[in-house]
């Protein structure tokens, strides 16, 4: 117990890195996911095929492999990316693919009459998407997006393998010094649980507010 408390400041600080990684990757992933969903739904030539391939590749390969590829791959061409940026790139690309699927489903679930009503007002396809379809689909996608974020929060632990000092790597560092894996890993687990639960709580409240009118 004493050790857990002693290591808490370091672990809490590492938790901030974890949250930061998750937040940054989620922000980028949301943009990637929405854009790629729109590209696929609008059937933009070439690009839509690229996006389908992207989603398929990401969803069909382990995140750990993707992280290794992003970090260790480019140096083979003499191009080196720091651990933290590599981590954010890998996590964003990963979460973007899953969000792309969520957004696509949500956009397609908006009733056909909504697009027609927008058209009869004289809107273009993209104006209708921006003003009418996407705002509604974001509300529909919200629960899935929230779950994706919680998944991502935990997946950040994988970037410990490329020397990003987030919560799990910090735990390992402390264990290497103290030889108390049970205590430290348990503390880390509690911190992950706490972060996820806090977010779930926020998510529930936001969902209740936003989904009132859909």
């Amino acid at each position, binding site marked *: 117990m004493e050790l857990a408390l002693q290591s808490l400041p370091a672990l809490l600080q590492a938790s901030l890195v974890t949250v930061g990684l998750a937040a940054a990757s989620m922000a980028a992933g949301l943009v990637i996911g929405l854009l790629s969903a729109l590209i696929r739904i609008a059937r933009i030539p070439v690009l839509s095929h690229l996006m389908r391939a992207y989603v398929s590749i990401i969803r069909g390969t382990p995140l750990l492999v993707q992280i290794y590829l992003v970090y260790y791959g480019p140096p083979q061409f003499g191009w080196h990316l720091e651990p933290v940026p590599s981590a954010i790139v890998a996590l964003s690309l990963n979460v973007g693919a899953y969000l792309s699927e969520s957004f696509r489903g949500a956009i397609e679930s908006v*009733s056909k*009459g*909504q697009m*027609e*009503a*927008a*058209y*009869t*007002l*004289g*809107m*273009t396809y993209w*104006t209708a998407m921006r*003003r*009418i379809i996407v*705002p*509604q689909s974001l*509300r529909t996608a919200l629960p899935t997006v929230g779950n994706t974020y919680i998944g991502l929060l935990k997946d950040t632990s994988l970037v410990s393998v490329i020397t990003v000092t987030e919560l799990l790597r910090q735990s390992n560092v402390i264990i290497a010094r103290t030889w108390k894996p049970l205590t430290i890993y348990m503390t880390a687990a509690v911190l992950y649980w706490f972060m996820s639960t806090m977010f779930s709580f926020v998510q529930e409240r936001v969902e209740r507010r936003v989904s*009132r*009118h*859909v």
Partner: protein
Amino acid sequence: MSEPVVQVTNLRKRFGPHEVLRGINLRVAQGEVVVIMGPSGSGKSTLLRCMTFLEVPDEGTICIDGRTVTAGPLTKERMAKVREIRRHTGFVFQSFNLFPHMTALENVMEGPVTVLRVPKPEARRRAEELLGKVGLTEHMHKHPSRLSGGQQQRVAIARALAMSPSVILFDEPTSALDPELVGEVLQVMRALAREGMTMVVVTHEMGFAREVADRVIMMDAGAIVEEGPAADIFTNPKEERTRRFLSRMGRHGLP
């Protein structure tokens, strides 16, 4: 006679092997109220939807308020013309299709602000006025989910009016409503007709047709079977098919 507001020439549409519209010709004069009736599957809804290219017609010409589009593939130029026509043509759907993420007021403001680039304060003033006109002043800050079907349809009519259309097309505007809510919508439409709005209405409401329509059109199997003043069509139909349809509908307009 002045130029008609709506002129549809030889409009044809097929879904696969099924010919839904077989060369429809339709002229609607300024301020005229035309009611289209006919059995389901006769093509009346498709006719309205083709007029605003919600369905793309295979053949024919549509001219609304001097703007002409011919049927054909949706090239950029044609789409621009179609949008131009849509901006001047109101459309009221059977299922209202209000935007659920916006209040009644925002629904009515959306077209003017986003499409016509009317400044917001001005659009808001006009939207409030229109919602007042359809009797929804005290509901204007509610979302559609909190309005009854009749109220939603009246918001939809206000939304169409906000674009200051040359004509409003009504696609079975009361068919999705509980019987006790039909009256309030028809009342709004009656008032519009009195004010001289040009309207094309697909409906089964015989009472409304008899009272408000300047002309009734009977459609069957993708063609216009008979047309004329409401009184003539209802009391003295010339065509057997019209007679059969009217007797099936009964005197009160219920199918």
